[in-house]
């Protein structure tokens, strides 16, 4: 593949991953490559990133794709750790296993040494060795063999390496102070986690070489954090999303403040206008206005915290509470089949991590039998907290409307919606999945407007619109 074709395919892949790369940025990138040359891979990476990626959230996707299209080496590299030859038949299975065990042990040993010294070159070699030796997945025929990070990591068992490394760090060495137990564990986990990512990258690289980068990009590169669906997020990603909440709220708040500033011009501020006119010889060229008092909504959030949608509810609540000053009052309730108030769990400036833990605990109070029952929850809510919804408040229901085929009690929801100033329903499922199985989405959707809200981007857009 010629360099230019490769570059264009790379840009195409970036666009497919959701990065808005314009033609002029593409041209800039080509010029940057011409200026930088191809000798230094990291410089090339920096150059392409500077011209093509204009949002930090997209950087992870960019790096993953860059590694696929501009791999650091080809094949098994100079060291030559290909798949092990398969025809060593004159040994018994027992002997093979024995040899394998010693090999794995030796690799673990070297790995924890390299991690302790933070020797980047050696680590790269070990990554290749680990994938080459243990990551091969036997294929069904010639050229169909593949690579798996799961296989490689399974054999090496990173947890053992973490423990070994932590012990080494606690003992210290000649030029390093010994670390405390907690810090050593933390450091060890972080380093091994980094190496694990290297292994995954290396596997992607090898697969990409055999099956084409496009194939791997389609199947393995995850979308940027604000586009990951709440319901399909992995553990690390959930953490990443949680970190995003406060910056997101801050951005949203400053945008809102600015828009309100521009939109709401109050009555003329006579004093300031006259004062300003002095510098233009008494002619009031610019008029000044008093800011109008902002209108603030009272928000009542009712959220489903059953297993499948708990994450979504938690994120929405966090975002709403991070924006607390935009609302005059926020009350939050959680339900599974019973209702509990969680307003007290949120305090201004509280730690999001703790809040989430407390919220999960509250799910226990919100369930009697643990099977989601929207009808019952709505009824309970109306009889016990019905006075929370009034003509000044907006009602926000969060949930997937999957009620285990129980009576949806549309009348109760209609009654609540009528009492409130506005009512919305946020559904974390894709519109295509509404009404499948036990979902009563469109029935509820007829009573209150239902909005699809699958990821942080959609959530931000929605919150921006209601404030």
């Amino acid at each position, binding site marked *: 593949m010629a360099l230019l074709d490769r570059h264009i395919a790379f840009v195409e892949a970036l666009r497919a991953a959701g990065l*808005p790369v*314009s033609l*002029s*940025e593409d041209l*800039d990138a080509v*010029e*940057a490559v011409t*200026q*930088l040359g191809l000798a*230094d891979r*990291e*410089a090339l*990476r*920096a*150059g392409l*990133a*500077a*011209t093509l*990626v*204009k*949002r*930090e959230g997209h*950087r992870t996707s960019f790096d993953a794709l860059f590694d696929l299209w501009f791999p650091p080496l080809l094949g098994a590299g100079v060291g030559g750790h290909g798949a092990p030859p398969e025809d060593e038949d004159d040994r018994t299975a027992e002997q093979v296993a024995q040899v394998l065990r010693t090999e794995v042990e030796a690799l673990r040993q070297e790995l924890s040494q390299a991690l302790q010294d933070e020797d980047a070159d050696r680590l790269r070699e070990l990554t290749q060795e680990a994938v080459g030796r243990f990551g091969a997945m036997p294929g069904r025929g010639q050229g169909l063999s593949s690579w798996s990070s799961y296989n490689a990591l399974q054999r090496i068992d990173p947890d053992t390496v973490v423990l070994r490394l932590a012990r080494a760090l*606690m003992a210290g060495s000649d030029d390093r102070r*010994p*670390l*405390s*137990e*907690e*810090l050593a564990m933390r450091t060890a986990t972080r380093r091994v986690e980094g190496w694990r990512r290297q292994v995954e990258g290396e596997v992607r690289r090898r697969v990409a070489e055999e099956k084409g980068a496009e194939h791997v990009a389609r199947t393995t590169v995850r979308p940027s954090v604000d586009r990951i669906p709440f319901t399909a997020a992995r553990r690390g990603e959930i953490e990443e999303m949680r*970190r995003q909440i406060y*910056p997101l709220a*801050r*951005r949203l708040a*400053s*945008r809102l403040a*600015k828009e309100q500033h*521009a939109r709401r011009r109050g009555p003329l501020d006579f004093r300031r206008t006259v004062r300003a006119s002095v*510098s*233009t*010889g008494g002619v009031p060229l610019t008029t000044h206005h008093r800011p109008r008092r902002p209108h603030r909504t009272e928000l009542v959030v009712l959220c489903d915290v059953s297993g499948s949608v708990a994450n979504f509810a938690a994120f929405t609540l966090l975002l709403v509470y991070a924006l607390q000053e935009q609302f005059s009052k926020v009350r939050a309730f959680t339900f599974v089949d019973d209702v509990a108030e969680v307003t007290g769990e949120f305090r201004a*400036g509280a*730690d*999001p*991590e703790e809040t989430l833990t407390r919220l999960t605990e509250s799910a226990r109070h919100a369930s009697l039998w643990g099977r989601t029952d929207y009808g019952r929850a709505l009824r309970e809510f109306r009889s016990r907290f019905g006075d929370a919804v009034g003509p000044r408040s907006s009602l926000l229901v969060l949930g997937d409307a999957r009620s285990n085929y129980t009576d949806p009690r549309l009348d109760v929801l209609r009654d609540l919606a009528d009492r409130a100033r506005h009512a919305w329903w946020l559904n974390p499922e894709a519109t295509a999945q509404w009404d499948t199985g036990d979902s009563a989405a469109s029935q509820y959707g007829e009573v209150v407007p239902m909005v699809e809200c699958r990821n942080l981007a959609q959530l931000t857009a929605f919150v921006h619109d209601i404030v």
Partner: protein
Amino acid sequence: MTTWFDSPADAAKRLHDSGYLADTATATTAYLAGALEKPLLVEGPAGVGKTELAKAVARATGAELVRLQCYEGLDEARALYEWNYKKQLLRIQAAGDQSWEQTHDDIFTEEFLLTRPLLTAIRREEQTVLLVDEVDKTDVEVEGLLLEVLSDFQVTIPEMGTVSAVRRPFVVLTSNATRELSEAVKRRCLFLHLDYPDAAREKEIVVSQVPGVADRLAAELVETVARLRELELKKAPSIAESVDWARTLVALEVDDLDEEAVGATLGVVLKHASDQDKALAALRGHQAGARRR
């Protein structure tokens, strides 16, 4: 045609010589900004050296720095140019029986023009670094104003015509990302995200910025700061604050960063009461672990 830097390596070296320790990405991007003559948009948390980068480029290349500090309500008159209204009035009054046509031509000349940073930077004939600081604080209208300046390096003044850059300035825009800049601005810029540096580089920065700090103290300090950043605080300590902390410790003649010293000086790095409580609790746990062994 001026060259700012010869190569990424040259950029790294010259920035280093002027007291700014740049990593590969920063040096490469700075080189590209000069080579492609594109504005450089630097984004990142507060206090990671975004503004300092612009100053360092100016120092490294011997160029003059022109700075435009952005704030809410910044307008054309403060950013671009303004007619010296009072002087024009005087000129009209002093004109006496001169015809209006003549006066009219007189008062819209160079003499009555007050140039503001953007125009100043474009009209300068020497090498110039233009720093547009905290561009996210401005209103959207100012972005529109920047577009003309950033893409064509020219300014149109209705009374005088279009002023084009004699020599293109090296433009650095900084942003704390409190708001997304418009796509149009981003498209015209090279983008660099600066983040907290790794421990080794931060230590190097602290040692180079604070004379008299012991190597061991710097290492301990950097380690503690890195630990603080992991804690999900309201405001994570910046590089500038680690440097301040090191200065404080040197001034107080503390050579060991023990619990007492941390407790007494934590106010230098953490500026929220809740952050301080959280940090002290976390650090105490860590130090108790160290003592137990």
